[in-house]
């Protein structure tokens, strides 16, 4: 397989909500739902690129939804239109969209919603419900309306939807499969309840990364089959393979 590392031009970089940004860059790729890119600005620091999921992809443009956290994402937040950034990818296994069928629940926590837009667009012949939890502000949910049947929102502050966690309002009952991305504690809870219903669940894992392509073994996660590389063998795993004790 041929992988690309190249300069891409920023077409848009907008602040959606408090610390949430959407970045659109020029680029033509063959992308699977749930894959990610390693993104690096031209600045010398930080030295490592940052893994960011494909949020959306339309002819000639890749979009990313990201949260400003530390050194890397702060620099991303300052990018202007026409700036160049370096992209490596697309990377990772992604969701096996071809083989996911029937009534599907997508469960996302906060910025875990990022990989899910292109994912719901990629799922063919599925009936999808979106469950999503936020701390306070709700963002990007409207984009999903065209592609899903129902949207269930929880906010910790109670500002929108149910007051509490998304795990409080989600039940795998009736779903053929569940796709999940968010904080580990949340994913673990979802895996647990899916186990009770014997519902297949796919989780997208997150680890600190250096190479992003499987060479450094820095991003391993323990699975029932031993250590796996999140960047290459993942980021998508069967929920029960990684949350063994859930």
């Amino acid at each position, binding site marked *: 397989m041929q992988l*690309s590392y190249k300069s891409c031009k920023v077409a848009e970089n907008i602040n959606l909500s408090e610390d949430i940004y959407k970045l659109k860059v020029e680029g033509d790729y063959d992308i699977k739902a749930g894959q990610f890119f390693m993104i690096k600005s031209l600045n010398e620091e930080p030295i490592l690129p940052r893994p960011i999921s494909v949020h959306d992809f339309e002819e000639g443009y890749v979009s990313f939804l990201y949260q400003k956290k530390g050194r890397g994402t702060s620099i991303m937040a300052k990018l202007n239109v026409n700036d160049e950034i370096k992209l*490596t990818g697309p990377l990772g296994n992604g969701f096996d969209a071809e083989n996911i069928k029937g009534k599907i629940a997508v469960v996302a926590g906060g910025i875990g919603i990022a990989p899910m837009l292109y994912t719901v667009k990629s799922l063919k012949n599925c009936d999808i419900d979106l469950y999503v939890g936020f701390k306070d502000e709700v963002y990007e949910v409207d984009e999903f309306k065209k592609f899903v049947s129902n949207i269930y929102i929880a906010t910790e502050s109670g500002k929108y939807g149910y007051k509490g966690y998304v795990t409080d309002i989600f039940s795998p009952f009736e779903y053929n499969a569940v796709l999940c991305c968010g904080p580990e504690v949340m994913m673990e809870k979802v895996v647990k309840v899916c186990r009770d219903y014997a519902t297949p669940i796919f989780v997208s894992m997150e680890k600190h990364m*250096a190479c992003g392509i499987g*060479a450094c*073994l*820095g991003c391993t996660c323990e699975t029932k089959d031993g250590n796996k590389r999140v960047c290459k063998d993942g980021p998508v795993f069967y929920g029960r393979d990684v949350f063994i004790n859930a």
Partner: protein
Amino acid sequence: MAGMCLLMLKTNICKVEFKNPVIAASGTFGFGEEYSAFYDVGRLGGICTKGLTLNKKEGNKGIRLHETRAGLINSIGLQNPGIDCFIENELPKMKKMNTVIIANLGGGSIEEYAEGVKKLSESEVDMIELNISCPNVKSGGMAFGIKSETAFEVVSKVKGYCKKPLIVKLSPNAENIVDMAVKCCEAGADALSLINTFKAMAIDIYKRKPVFDNIFAGLSGPCIKPIALRMVYEVCKEVNVPVIGIGGIESFKDAIEFIMAGATAVEVGTANFINPMVCLEIIDGIKKFMEDEGIKNIEEIRGIARR
């Protein structure tokens, strides 16, 4: 013309011929396969494998990577499939890559090193790089890389079983890097490579505890270059075997500095993560530098900063 360019970069280490003096460093390049997705790794001078041990290792738990200013601290812990599995599954693929294959060998005891060297000696690897310097596992060999006497012991023993050119990889944590180098040569090292990572740490001030489960881990990357270069310079002055310079190399300029300090070749590690094409860019950069400066053969500038 292209032929001439290739000629001027050709490098020999212990009678093994390298197309050019740029080698991918152990632990940062897997077994070469991943980077083959970016370019023909046959254009490299050589590839050092991920550190191998006699038996398979799962590596360390907890966070394994932490970025610092111009650096990376890693606590991989020599995760690897074991020598047998390497020889069976990885080496055949590597042999097709058309570059020099250097097996990097870690170990927890003299016996384990010796056993490893025996097995690798019977394999098709071109050279063995003895890692007596990994700070990330008790059995990673760093204990052997601190005191010259201990290093002398392990290298002497291993040398007896070694049928391949033996490179000994030194730790910057050595008490005295020059003495260490001299002792390793006395013990039979055919070449030296330096440096491995610095013992370092980071603390998560919100969790109020060390970032790494093992507390300490290894620092690499551009930040360490000025110290690595000094060590290579000092060692080259005192030994007669070829020295491979390592530590923070991220551009052709860095590589040339190491060569002018006396290194026969260089290994590039962390910089591969910053830019997956970096090894090729370094090779091309060296070539262009030599053309611009009218240098016909890299020998002309090797060690020139010491004169």
